[in-house]
């Protein structure tokens, strides 16, 4: 998977302008920016505020409310590991322990490396857990070795 281009205020402005006609356009804009750059730079706040006639505080408030939106560049690969009940019943916490003990990968550790494993609650694959989502693809019956390999793969390609 390719890394993201650096933040670019002009293309951000174009993306925002392209969505300004929507009702309740804030989330579509934030998603589109994050899809393009991997995160929503704080410089986007005044642009969105102006386009939608909102205060900066309102835009900032929306960004900070939702778990999905990042305000700093993201690692080249993020593996989202489900840690909700059905995956707990299938041993996802043992996967978390094994990742730390055997592979030196700490789930949800704040870090700026090339790969990260993050907690998510339910991926809708509760009969085939533990589940993970990586690069938009769903994985079932995962174990620590598979997650660790995905993280290494992320590093190799970045």
């Amino acid at each position, binding site marked *: 998977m390719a890394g993201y281009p650096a933040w670019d205020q002009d293309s951000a402005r174009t993306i925002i302008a392209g969505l300004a006609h*929507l*009702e*309740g*356009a*804030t*989330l*579509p804009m*934030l*998603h589109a920016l994050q899809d393009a750059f991997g995160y929503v730079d704080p410089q986007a706040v005044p642009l969105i505020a102006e386009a*939608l006639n*909102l205060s900066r505080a*309102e835009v900032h*408030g*929306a960004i900070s*409310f*939702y*778990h*999905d*939106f990042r305000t700093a560049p993201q690692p080249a690969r993020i593996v*989202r590991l489900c840690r*909700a*009940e*059905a*995956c*707990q*019943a*299938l041993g996802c*916490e043992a996967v978390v322990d094994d990742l*730390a003990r055997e592979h030196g990968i700490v789930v949800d550790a704040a870090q700026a490396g090339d790969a990260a494993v993050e907690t*998510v*609650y*339910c*991926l*809708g*694959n*509760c*009969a*085939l*857990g533990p*589940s993970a*989502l990586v690069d*938009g*693809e*769903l*994985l*079932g*019956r995962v174990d620590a070795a598979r997650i660790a390999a995905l993280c290494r793969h992320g590093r190799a390609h970045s």
Partner: protein
Amino acid sequence: MSAAPIRIFVPVDAAALSVGAEAVARAVAREAAARGAAVEIVRNGSRGMLWLEPLVEVETPEGRIAYGPVAERDVPSLFEAGFLSGGAHALRLGRTEELDWMKRQQRLTFERVGVIDPLSIAEYRAHGGFAGLERAIGLGGAEIVEAIRASGLRGRGGAGFPTGIKWKTVHDAKADQKYVVCNADEGDSGTFADRMLFEGDPYLTIEGMAIAAVAVGATRGYLYLRSEYPHAYRTLERAILKAEAAGLIGASVMGSKHAFHLEVRLGAGAYICGEETSLLESLEGKRAVVRAKPPLPALQGLFGKPTVVNNVLSFAAVPWILAHGAQAYADYGMGRSRGTLPVQLGGNVKRGGLIELAFGISLREIIEDMGGGTLSGRPIRAVQVGGPLGAYLTAEQLDVQMDYEALASMRAMLGHGGIVVFDDTVDMARQARFAFQFCAKESCGKCTPCRIGATRGVEVMDRIIAGTERPKNIAVLRDLAKLMTDASLCAMGGLTPMPVMSALNHFPEDFDRPPSPRQEIALAAE
């Protein structure tokens, strides 16, 4: 030779993909090409037998023959065995329709899922699609609303509110603009019916929403989908474009005077956005803080306008009701729970998946007969029903029937129909702690009992798990649970005590164990 190509079905459902369906589809194409066999590979939804995925079917004169679970490496041997004509093979399961799992069900909502090509409007129509909408257009709004009321349909998103009453409120409201909003946040762990329906039969929910729009006089609709479902998102986006291009929705619904413009909007990883007022705030582009009710969303919903908000499965039940009649739907079910319920069986279970049945089957039949017990082979110890805010039941309580009132009478809830099985290695004190931790993380922060209570709950559970002053802390836990139940603004804070208290009351021994080294390590790490 120019014989018609043989149709082979390889699911494109995300769960099937999660265990290798894409590689299987490619291998089938490769083998067929290498052998010069004329095949048409259809990417269907999943039949819901998730333990058999990737489940490959071949269309033969005797019907569709299923093989599964198929791995990429099995494909050459399937061709050797003559699976194109339904030949014998170790993975051959028999006719799909005759499999025990399928035969036991009453599929109304899921009747086409796994059967048709999800994005083919022609196949959707050939299997009865758009008959309900056509019928609805011929009726007036009031008559549609009456049909829904008479069917006994209750909201499938969790609260079980009668759908017809909600629609009547919006129908009767006077406004220049009304909205229809589909709640596809499906945040409850252990649930995946909405996802499977979108990936396997996307036009059904679109049709149900269009019927709602015609019924109440709404011209715009939003489908709010959780961002954790990228496959469903792609399918829905394409389905809406195709439905518009075919004139089924858009400026005119099937050539009628009704307009219905529909858009998918993605959530952003917040569980609370499944709560309907929080969802509306989110659609408006705001922090998704829960609104106080009243006003009801039916009267002042999206952008302050009258709004129908229903779960995916509620909308998806509607076309069948219109096409077959309210009474035909009400004939399924028991008591005040009418129709069918798509149950999702997951967690530590041998045969997990999607089961649609009339209300009233017992949990035990589902988990033991259909599910085959635990995947680990160990005894069942606990079963959580109804998502993260639902109760944990014991193995002895499983004779309860799946019905709103029956579960409520044992301080449990049906929710969105998710069933999660745990074996005897589960530690129920840790599950109780998790319920608080989840609430602390996902609380919208509007009210103190939930915002502060959940964090307190984690601390109290930590002390109990660590063995500190247990009797005193268990008393604190009970008080806290009562406070959250009584004083929270919405069911997030109000129902978090349900899993906690059911764990404490049904599994008290887990709250009285010597602290284990594993627990200490885990606590120290957090």
